[in-house]
């Protein structure tokens, strides 16, 4: 394990508990976001990693080595550090700022020059910026330098404390893309403190949600959106985001109609027609005795072949479109809509029939995504977009929930 934090506690003099029993294991190459409100202990925890603060109890191990037993100065030179207020030295050129840590490590001059050039290239700034001073750069450019300064000495671990909080949204997004790219391309490990959920969702491989010094939840962005551990996490994510995220994290299994009406291949067409009549549907799914999906018959098939065929097996359509119950709505909705199917059987991993998605279900999904809470101006634009896409054909089954399966 690259970084292990075990039973960390931090109590300030006077008894204020900042961090309580914090446990986390971080793999190399992960992008971990600590998120929480102010006073949640996220910054405190991050600052314990490079010993800017010392824990009251508990251990932190970097590559298996207890950092409490290391020289703090040497430790910090191995860990990149980026703070919100940028922290570039105003009296040093960009070159000197970038090579600050290499210089402390006594790299030869030639290697440092080389490094400065590589680094400025990495953040796509012109080389002649190296001789400028920080005040001659824009805020976004300065923070780019702040980011590469934290990598210049080949640091494997980079700590960032709300580094983009003071930047305008466009610059912030560009810098988020930059660090995400650096993490993915260079395999650096990031521990990133933020209070911006969008930022955390965008960047993280895992998110650590903190409140009152305690971990509320540790999970991937998808996991957090799909299963917020408690009300605090839900509130932090925000209702809007949960609703927006719903189509992207909801599985087919969650929205399908259960107990689809089905028959078996051995049944006669008379039985099938009777079942359709009784259940008020226009088609039937066909499964074998083990509930494995075999095909589908529609009322047209029954009508056309009623005199020539005897069993369902003779006329059923074997080549049918189906979806897995654990696939995401996000990935399936569009395919369903495009093909204009009236309804799609849902199967589990063993190809057993477990449910059905009808066009009425799709209407529910679109409806929830748009009006899940209350209307917003920008969302009402999307409504037209959504309805335009829905083909009018096949609307025959959308009238009622439940009995509309075929």
């Amino acid at each position: 394990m690259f970084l292990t934090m075990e039973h960390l506690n931090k109590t300030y003099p006077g008894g204020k508990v900042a961090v309580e029993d914090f446990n986390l294991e971080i793999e190399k190459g992960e992008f971990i976001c600590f998120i929480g409100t102010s006073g949640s202990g996220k910054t405190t925890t991050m600052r314990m990693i490079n010993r800017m603060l010392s824990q009251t109890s508990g251990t932190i191990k970097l590559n298996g080595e207890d950092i409490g037993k290391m020289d703090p100065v040497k430790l910090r030179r191995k860990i990149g550090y980026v703070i919100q207020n940028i922290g570039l030295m105003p009296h040093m050129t960009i070159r000197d700022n970038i090579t600050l840590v290499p210089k402390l490590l006594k790299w030869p001059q030639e290697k440092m020059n080389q490094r400065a050039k590589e680094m400025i290239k990495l953040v796509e700034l012109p080389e002649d910026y190296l001789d400028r001073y920080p005040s001659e750069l824009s805020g976004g450019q300065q923070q780019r330098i702040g980011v590469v300064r934290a990598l210049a000495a080949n640091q494997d671990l980079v700590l960032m404390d709300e580094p983009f909080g003071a930047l305008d949204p466009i610059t912030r997004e560009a810098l988020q893309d930059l660090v995400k790219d650096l993490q993915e391309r260079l395999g650096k490990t990031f521990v990133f403190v933020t209070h911006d959920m969008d930022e955390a969702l965008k960047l993280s491989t895992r998110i650590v949600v903190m409140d009152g010094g305690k971990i509320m939840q540790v999970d991937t962005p998808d996991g957090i959106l799909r299963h917020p551990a408690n009300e605090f996490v839900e509130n932090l994510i925000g209702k809007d985001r949960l609703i927006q995220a719903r189509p992207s994290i909801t599985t087919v299994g969650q929205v399908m109609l259960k107990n689809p009406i089905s028959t078996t291949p051995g049944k006669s067409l008379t039985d099938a027609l009777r079942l359709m009549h009784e259940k008020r549907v226009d088609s039937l799914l066909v499964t074998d005795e083990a509930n494995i999906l075999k095909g589908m018959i529609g009322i047209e098939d029954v009508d056309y072949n009623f005199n020539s065929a005897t069993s369902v097996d003779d006329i059923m359509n074997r080549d049918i479109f189906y979806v897995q119950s654990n696939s995401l709505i996000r990935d399936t909705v569009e395919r369903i809509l495009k093909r204009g199917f009236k309804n799609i059987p849902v199967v589990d991993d063993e190809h057993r029939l477990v449910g059905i998605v009808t066009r009425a279900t799709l209407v529910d999904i679109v409806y929830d995504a748009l009006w899940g809470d209350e209307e917003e101006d920008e969302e009402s634009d999307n409504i037209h977009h959504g309805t335009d896409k829905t083909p009018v054909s096949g609307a025959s089954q959308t009238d009622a929930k439940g009995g509309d399966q075929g």
Partner: protein
Amino acid sequence: MITFLQTYGTQLLLKTWQHLYISAIALALGIIVAVPLGILLTRTKKISGFVMAIASMLQTIPAMALLALMIPFFGIGAIPAIIALFIYSLLPILRNTYLGMEDVNPALIDAAKGMGLTGWQSIVKVELPMAAPVIMAGIRLSATYVIAWAALASYIGAGGLGDFIFNGLNLYRTDLILGGSIPVIILALIVDWLLGKLEAAVTPRTTQA
């Protein structure tokens, strides 16, 4: 004026030199003591208020009284004068060093520490350069004070341009009073101008041009 210079020219040069070196030594000692002490106080904030109060108190002792107080301990001559002037030079330098260091953006100090600068490296590479203009302003102020008050040092036999002034006062000779005062003023202006140049030189560059 010309007759004055013809009569007192060499003496004037000698006294000016005395005046300058008494002031310079006192100021140098002041810098050597007050700058490190000011830095030290920013690391030990608990006692900083106490030390600053003492420095302020020393500043309030009347100059004549302080000079007179030196005699029982150090006798008369240049040394007690230098010591008295040194005490006067302390406060402006100490206060400006302390305030200048305190005023350095904490984010820079945090960044410096977080990147692995030792405490000493942080002071030398980051804090002192950033505080330099404020510290220099304190030194300039002290220099002006010291040169002006060095005129009083003649009173305890330290020499300097004060000799002219005190003689003039005793003999009701306006030319001697002016002949002592004007060089003191010119000296103070020149030293301040030179230190101003030095201040500009130690103020770190933050732009290319």
